[in-house]
């Protein structure tokens, strides 16, 4: 690993001051992604600012009936938190679908949002990559692109966002609270991550001198009709080929409200307002779900090795909506998909 300096932030304001003073510095919390990238020579910070001891580790109920999750709450604590289990089981399920328990014990809520892609070319410093080295080219477009995007990609980049947790947060309409030199602000979850466009080096709209302080969940948790269905190359501890977070509010068989977010298919958790709107007011049937899947995937395009993801995504969307409607969410321990 490269040499770097180490400093410990004493509070959020101190963390912001320190990062603003050194543009080549980075925050470190869990370190599960950053240390790996530093070992691979992909990230080369001059200094690590340790924020792991900041008091951002609580899960609190908000006045509006939602939850405010501190940015340093470990993924495992969040997944098993009684209020998450009871009111936002979709989030708990998605978290448990990702990584291993050791990594979830380390990884923070804020850090999960800021994970970099696992595109092999991003990791391989011997190959061109516009995300790692803007302007150098994309090796994945004509390379081994089996894991890559089918939606929302650009000429510059076809990488996918690796998080499972973020797919659930997108479906749940979470908010991301951040602090910076100019004060605090909040993002709607859909506005936090970016599509690659011509600037794939920027994964999010967070400014370099800002820190994520909390993730807020609105009151509605869809605890009755939800599922997180993740399809991957092995049954556990692998990134998604396609994953779907589905949440429904039903009135009898009629869909009053639908949320649908996809992982493994785009540069950010993929939501499609048109498909969700098309589900509203419809009967919760296989035909309705298939129409929604067609809408989500209407602009999907595959590359040499990942075109299978389009049909896979179609089937996973239908199955996930079926599981959600039935009230039989996918177990993350018993792997049989019903």
């Amino acid at each position, binding site marked *: 690993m490269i040499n770097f300096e180490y400093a410990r932030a004493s509070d959020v304001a101190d963390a912001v001051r320190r990062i603003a003073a050194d543009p080549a510095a980075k925050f470190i919390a869990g370190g599960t992604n950053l*240390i790996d990238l530093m070992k691979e020579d992909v990230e080369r910070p001059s200094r690590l600012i340790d924020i792991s001891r900041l008091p951002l580790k609580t899960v609190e109920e908000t006045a509006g009936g939602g939850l405010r999750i501190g940015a340093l709450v470990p993924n495992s604590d969040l997944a098993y938190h009684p209020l998450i289990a009871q009111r936002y089981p979709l989030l708990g399920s998605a978290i448990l679908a990702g990584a*291993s*328990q*050791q990594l979830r014990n380390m990884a923070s809520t804020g850090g999960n949002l800021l994970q970099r892609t696992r595109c092999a070319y991003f990791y391989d410093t011997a190959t061109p990559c516009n995300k790692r080295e803007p302007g150098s080219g994309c090796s994945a477009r004509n390379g081994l692109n089996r894991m890559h995007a089918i939606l929302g990609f650009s000429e510059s980049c076809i990488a996918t966002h690796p998080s499972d947790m973020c797919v659930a947060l997108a479906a749940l309409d979470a908010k991301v609270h951040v602090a910076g030199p100019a004060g605090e602000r909040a993002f709607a979850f859909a506005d936090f991550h970016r599509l690659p466009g011509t600037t794939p080096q920027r994964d999010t709209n967070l400014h370099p001198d800002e820190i994520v302080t909390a993730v807020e969940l609105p009151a509605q948790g869809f605890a009755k009709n939800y599922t997180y269905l993740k399809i991957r190359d092995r049954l556990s501890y692998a990134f998604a080929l396609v994953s779907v977070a589905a949440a429904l509010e039903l009135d009898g068989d009629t869909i009053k409200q639908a949320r649908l977010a996809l992982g493994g298919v785009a540069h950010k958790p993929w939501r499609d307002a048109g498909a969700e709107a098309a589900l509203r007011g419809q009967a919760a049937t296989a035909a309705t779900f298939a129409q929604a899947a067609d809408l989500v995937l209407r602009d999907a395009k595959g590359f040499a090795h990942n075109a299978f993801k389009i049909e896979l995504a179609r089937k996973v969307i239908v199955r996930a909506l079926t599981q959600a409607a039935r009230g039989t969410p996918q177990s993350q*321990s018993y792997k049989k998909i019903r």
Partner: protein
Amino acid sequence: MALTRKRATEQPIQVPEKIALSLTVNGVVRQLKVAPWTTLLDALRDHLALTGTKKGCDHGQCGACTVLVDGRRINSCLTLAVMKDGAKVTTIEGLATDGVLHPLQQAFIDHDAFQCGYCTPGQICSALGLIAEGKAKTADEIRELMSGNICRCGAYPNIVAAILQAMGRS
């Protein structure tokens, strides 16, 4: 296309001072001085000569480096030692008491839960964490929550049996 490699900073980086820290490892307070980039794994193996914890992939993918920090299982290869100043660390060397193996260690022997043994310290520390978490009740749940520990000899069925025995569910 020619690739140019740019460093994050233009100035050469000064080699920073080593940082003093204190870890309670297997119940013993240890003072050490390490560079900021020293992982907890390297601190245990190279600074404290506790080589029971293994370096497998060194990227958090295999679980061979699993130890418990303040009672929670983590990958020590992705943890900076300086960030754990003041923490309590349990490694495989800390499990036996007065020469008597920990029930998990004995269960791994009873069930032949290893062949080459390289992943075993990580498997056992991970299982210790798993039992403390109390989330796994069945073999399926054990398999899922032990998925961060890879065994290239393929001793998985016996590892699950050993953990079930240690949980008193054999």
